[in-house]
């Protein structure tokens, strides 16, 4: 079990003066899996990534990556990680190819390896046409792709993705997700930070929710959702008479959602089976349904119930 743990973080604490940014963070990442750190702005996600990638000293706790102590064996850690930060860290005056080759050489790749790998990544990331243009002429999405390609130049077994899709348009975001999924298929261990609940849900094997420098929940997307509740079936009827008839059929399981809407809501365990049973019951008594909807709890509900506030990312989108 311990053999498969690639990243171990125990009791990690970090303060800037009196501002406690991390108040004791614990988590582990298993080889070949993706862990998502989910949280609003200022939760401490980037601080964690900066500490794990040897950029920032920490106050207390223990961090090991591939068994190397982040503090004592920084150089060893650096040779097994790749970092893609929030602010696409590429040299704007150099071309995409020059960026890749330079970083490859700094990763200790031989010249021929760096050149061959740069060529391969430019193809993989759909940057061949722009390869010999300075990076400052790239669009936001291209720049992110180049940035990610740069962090993969030496094919490190561990990748940190710090909000890789923040600020991207929906199409570029989906393109980025595809690239990340490909990486996962190759067995790369990934630590992803995001404020988009959907992103964590889509990509990650496990999620830890961070708020105010603490882990407030962890588990798979499914586990987190089940903490909030089960699926609900919402039924709407044409008028008060039909509504009352339906209530008689369904009994106490049906809860009024909103009287003026003539709607009821029922908790369901097995969506297909339960919905079928309910519909059969109603049609047996000739109660007509105007509309129906199955409501699945989203990670937004999770976040709301855990932190008592809506995630900032989602607010923006609304």
């Amino acid at each position, binding site marked *: 079990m311990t053999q498969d743990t690639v990243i171990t973080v125990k009791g990690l604490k970090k303060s800037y003066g009196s501002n406690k940014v991390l108040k004791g963070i614990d988590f582990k990442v298993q080889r070949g899996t993706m862990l998502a750190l989910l949280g609003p702005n200022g939760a401490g996600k980037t601080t964690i990534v*900066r500490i794990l*990638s*040897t*950029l*920032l*000293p920490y106050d207390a706790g223990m961090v090991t990556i591939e068994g190397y102590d982040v503090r004592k064996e920084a*150089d060893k850690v*650096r*040779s097994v*990680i*790749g*970092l893609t*930060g*929030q*602010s*696409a*860290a*590429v*040299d704007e*005056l*150099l071309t995409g190819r*020059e960026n890749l080759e*330079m*970083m490859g*050489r*700094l*990763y*200790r*790749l*031989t010249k*021929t*390896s760096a050149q*061959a*790998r740069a060529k*391969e990544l430019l193809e993989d990331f759909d940057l061949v046409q722009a390869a010999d243009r*300075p990076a400052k002429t790239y669009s936001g999405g291209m720049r992110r792709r180049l940035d990610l390609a*740069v*962090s993969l130049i*030496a*094919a490190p077994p561990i990748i940190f993705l710090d909000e890789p899709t923040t600020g991207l348009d929906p199409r570029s975001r989906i393109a980025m997700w595809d690239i990340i999924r490909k990486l996962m298929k*190759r067995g790369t261990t990934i630590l992803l930070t995001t404020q988009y609940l959907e992103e964590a849900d889509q990509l990650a094997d496990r999620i830890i929710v961070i708020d105010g420098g603490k882990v407030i929940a962890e588990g798979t997307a499914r586990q987190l959702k089940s903490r909030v509740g089960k699926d609900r079936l919402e039924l709407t009827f044409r008028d008060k008479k039909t509504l009352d008839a339906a209530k008689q059929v369904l009994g106490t399981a049906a809860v009024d959602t909103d009287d003026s809407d003539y709607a009821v809501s029922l908790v369901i365990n097995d969506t297909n089976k339960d919905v079928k049973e309910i519909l059969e019951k109603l049609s047996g008594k000739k109660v007509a349904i105007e509309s129906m909807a199955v409501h699945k709890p989203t990670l937004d509900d999770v976040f709301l119930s855990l932190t008592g506030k809506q995630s900032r990312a989602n607010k923006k989108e609304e």
Partner: protein
Amino acid sequence: MAVELEFERKSKFTQAITDSLIMIKRSSRHIIRNTDQLLGTFFQPIMFLVLFAAVFGGAISEALPQNVSYLNFLMAGIIVQTVAFGSTTTAIAVCNDLQKGIIDRFRSLPMNNLAVLSGHVISDVFRNGISTIVMLVTGFVIGFRSSASILDWLAIAGILLLFTLAFSWLAAIMGVLAKSVEGVQWMSFVIVFPLTFASSAFVPTEGMGKFLRAFAENQPISQIVEAVRALILGNPIGNHGWLAVLWCLGILAVSVPLAAWLFRRQSSR
């Protein structure tokens, strides 16, 4: 992944040199790609040389020894001033690296991080070399003549090389300390401007007030200007030669470790 990756196994020292060479290549590419800066490299020295010679030449030649033209007198000063002002480029480049995310990238790599600084400093030497050659050529076109021998020119090149290195490392400190590019420009204005103008770069110091003259004659820029000027004009170099070298070495001895320390501290925030 189709490509087989081969990694180099070198000693820490050779690796540090390789890293520096890679970063020098990077910074040198910046010089060529940054068109505004490139224009500055070529035209600023021409402009200064021609303007100073034309504007001050008439008035100042009175104060010069006979048979020394102002253009011949000015050449040493204007070269040193250009190099001193040019060091701002290092400061801006270092500041830019720190403000933008790229420094995090470099620090997350298994490289020698100080190569980022030495890359900028050494590419500054190339740029200053270009500026100096441009100025000398322009000077010859408008009437500059020198009695210096090849050996003298080599000595001039050596002194200027040391001076460029010293000032660029000083500039690297400014670049680390400044919070923005505007801050860099302000800092270099406050430090470099008085140093170059309160010196013997453009006028003989004899006409200055007592205190100003004492400062002007003993500060490092004047030593370098005087050493270069003596070599250009074929005058005895006196103490200026070894004082110039000593100043440069002294500045390097302080500024290199200080810049390195500040850079490490600043970039790990």
